[in-house]
């Protein structure tokens, strides 16, 4: 076990060191930036979402029916995919003073996938009035598992380093979500129509990556011109 984790650590170190050097991002003012927009489609027919059994705290959690959110497709569009630019070095400022919000309403994470630049603070709300706990299975950041009893309406969790963190509630086993922290502020999560938009992108050529919790990653090269919208569409399917 120890050996493996050591090797893993070394490997991650080897990969992460040069990458972090390359990807070091600096923010500033962007003049005449363009946008990148498009949609992410799901290839093939989507399986019917699995129903989740609400086995606990039914008076609160049972108000709405729960379905597995790990693959949501609406009209062929992929929802909850994270679109980001991976190789941008300069661009708009990272504003970490603004907190990003995660709500645990009726024992479900809203949004299911929350994306933000690393260094941001996540404000976690608990309007349910029952005990939740937010357990982040992070590997790059420090693993956290904080209780949020009824009397704590909000708690905060800062995510320091870029990483996609699976979050779970140990009290309500079906609850599952993702916190995706990125190197730079160019990140968006696809909405119900599978579409996304990245704004204030300085003119240039970039790699745009789509990450989905079940389907993995795919990327494309996109060239952005000043004040113009660059369209790019993705299609992802089960491997």
């Amino acid at each position, binding site marked *: *076990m*120890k050996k493996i984790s050591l090797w893993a650590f070394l490997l991650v170190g080897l990969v992460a060191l040069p990458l972090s050097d390359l990807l070091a991002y600096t923010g500033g003012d962007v003049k005449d930036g363009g946008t990148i927009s498009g949609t992410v489609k799901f290839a093939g027919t989507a399986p019917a979402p699995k129903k989740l059994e609400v*086995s*606990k*705290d039914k008076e609160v959690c049972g108000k709405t029916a729960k379905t597995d959110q790990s693959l949501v497709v609406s009209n062929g569009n992929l929802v909850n995919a994270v679109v980001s630019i991976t190789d941008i070095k300069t661009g708009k400022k990272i504003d970490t003073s603004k907190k990003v919000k995660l709500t645990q309403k009726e024992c479900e994470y809203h949004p299911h996938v929350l994306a933000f630049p690393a260094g941001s603070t996540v404000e976690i709300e608990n309007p349910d009035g*029952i*005990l939740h*706990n*937010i*357990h982040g299975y992070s590997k790059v950041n420090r*693993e*956290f*598992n*904080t*209780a*949020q*009893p*009824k*009397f*704590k309406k909000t*708690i905060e969790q800062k995510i320091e380093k870029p990483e996609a963190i699976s979050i779970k509630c*140990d*009290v*309500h*086993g079906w609850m599952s979500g993702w916190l995706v922290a990125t190197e730079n502020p160019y990140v968006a999560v696809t909405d119900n129509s599978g579409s996304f938009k990245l704004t204030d992108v300085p003119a240039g050529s970039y790699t745009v990556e789509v990450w989905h919790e079940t389907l993995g990653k795919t990327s494309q090269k996109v060239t952005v011109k000043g004040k113009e919208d660059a369209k790019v569409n993705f299609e992802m399917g089960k491997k």
Partner: protein
Amino acid sequence: MAVRGVDEKEEKKSYGSVFLLGSALLVVVTIWSFWDDNITRRPWKKYQAEFYRLDYRKARAAYDEENKKLAADPAYQELAKKLAAEEQSLEKGELAKKKKELESEEKKADVRFKDLDQEVKFIKSELEEAWYEHDHALQQGRPIKPYQEKIAELEARQKKLEPPVEAARQKRERLKEEIKKLESGVKDLKDQLAKMTGERDKWLTPMQNATLIEKPFVVYKIPSIKQVVLNEFDRNTFDQPIARVDRCQSCHMAANRAGFENEKQPFRTHPRREVLLADNAHPPEKFGCTSCHDGQGPAVSGVMKAHGEVAPGEHNYWEHPLLRGPKVQSNCASCHLNVQPFQDAPLLAQGQRTFEQIGCTGCHLVKGYEDIPKIGPSLKRISAKVDPSWMVRWIENPHKFRPRTRMPNFDFKENDAVAIAAFLWSLSKEEGDKWLQEHPMPAGVREGDKSLAPQGKALVESIGCKGCHGFAEGEFSTTVGKEKDLIPNLKDIAAKTGVRWIYHWIKNPRDYFPATHMPSLRLTDAEAAAITSYLTTLGAKAEPIAGIEERLADQKYIKRGESLTRKYGCFGCHDIQGMEKESRIGVELTTFGSKTLEELFFGNHTDIPNTWDDWTYNKLKTPRTYATERVEQVMPQFELADEDIKALRTLLAGFQDRKVPTRYLADHSQRAVQVVEGRRLMHQYNCIGCHEIENRGGFIRKYYQENPALAPPILNGEGEKVQSPWLFGFIKQPFGIRPWLQLRMPTFQLGDTEVNTLISYFNGLSRVEIPYAYFDEQKVPKEHLDAARILVTKDYFNCFSCHQQGEKKPEGPPEGWAPDLTLAGNRLSPAWIIKWLQDPQKVQPGTKMPSFFPGGPDNILGGKDDRQIEALRDYIMSLGRGAPAAEKPPAKPAPKGRVASR
């Protein structure tokens, strides 16, 4: 004038040139002898001189570098300027004038004070005199009145003088203060400056240490031997303690100094200096270098001689050559008892585990390893267990059937294998038959019945069998060394044995073999039948050897088998009837590491270099390699991986039976002994197959990567966590603490001594000082219980949302549950509960238990987190002891406290 007998010519002959030559020779020889004595035979001087130069230059460069930085620092410049100005002013300017005035005033004040003070002192002397006269007169019966008057007068004078003396003193002090104040500006600035220049000035010390004088030119220190004497460290041939002299640091001068990591040898910093040479580890001024690295400590006349090498790395003829790299690990065991946790001695630790577990001690006696039990199964009832044809093939070459088995290959011919099988068979027939009579064919499963197999497979995969056994190719749990299984892989078990034996064995292993390490999983008849059914589908029945029954019964074979069994020492690993008292057949290895080349027999080998290392390596690689036509060798082939051979060799090299005096020994306390003993036992019972202990093991976890919550608990820090009496009871009679686990903690049927050994091991690891302590429930403040009862409710921490509370089970599926809190009072250590509540993730990374603190509610116990945690501890400790969760304490007085760990 000629004298007879004297050759005048001879007298007049000049010997000047001879004398000249002689004195020239004398001068040359004298110079040469000085040269030889001081230079040629003292090569270390060159190194030391070179080191002083290096040290000085490095320090100088660093000093200059810092100095440059300071010169470029405007803050420093400003400060320096300010200081100069202030000093200037104090010397010549405004301040100087003032200072001068004050100083002259102070002088005057001082004179005045001293004058007055002297007057007082004189009066005091006169008083002494007056009192003497007074006492004298009293004793002689003269009138004392005049003296009384004199005394009164003197006292009055003294009293009158007191205020002016005090005033004068104060004036002087005030003036002194004022002068100091004037100078304080300079002092402050100097202090500030010293802070800034600290980084630079620290280099002055090494510069001074490397030189005699620095100005006007640098003269380096004169080299001298740096020697450490380790009194009584060694023994001479008569076993008398003698001192060891260690002069390594005459050349290796930077071994214990940071900053020389990239220099060439001998000037390099020790690569693990901070860990290994630190003050609390092995300070070289106490231990020298040879206590770990060997070599010829006192030799200083040449690098090769000091290192005990012929050429770098070659050391054919030296008894104690320098140990480089991982070989150093051999010496740890000379002083350390508990070597397993050493991060810097992985090879030694691995070698020791392999040595203890592969069966070396069955044939070889080694001090400190005498009590390791036989590692093989008992053969007293073997005829009731195995297929005879399988047995013959197994004896012939066990690696053919199970390449990863610990049983070595004796390279027997078929006839010999049959003979040994016949002997063992005949010996065990009576006991075996008796056992078979008492253990009939089970009702629940028949030979060849596969219908229950899927059910059995599911059980095998869920109740924990895989914590020890593999059931398919490539499946394994704990390994011995690199590629041997501690516990057999059962993928071909059907070839070895059948339904009847398997069924009764898994139901109660100790019934067949009372000393087995295989535990009972408390299987019901139906479960045992299902597992038996599954196991009999693994592999095919052994192909029978023609006429095997007759041969096994043949007296000729049996007799021959007995002599073979004795010759090869089978009883070293197995219980065999009538051979319980046989002694080990191999040589004792207690001092094997100190064997010299003359004591090692190389046979007819000319290809193996004549060193201890090579001899040992090849012996372990091919145990009978040194056999010749005349000299037979019987050691069997273990087929160990290269890495394991090297690990074993590292351990063996340390078998020196050194008698190191106590002051050099590491922890040999009772606790250390208990940890070593307990760990050994823990390894034998393979606790680490399921549990991670000392950050090692938990091998079954690989099957639970998807949901680690379903894996067995991690036991790092268990001693600190649970109460010893509880742990005793639990190991004796395990029960389900975690209802969501399908895995079963097995019943090992350990004896009291063994359980105590394990508990001492856990306590020793956690450094538990006092295993029994009193938790006084009577002293728990009511306020705490009241507060905690609110804290655990739904409105606050809602503990019972996950935690079971006696019969009250939480909502939802069991995999979301947490341990029964009513057990905590008897199970958990109160101090641990505090630590756990403060930060569960720190105690057990990855736990499902979230942290509730910091951030307890403001309206309870003044919003103080530590008080709330204490209240919860008190509540949890009292829970399940008659005080139900949300009710009033019972009318009957609760039991008056009880024994709890700490």
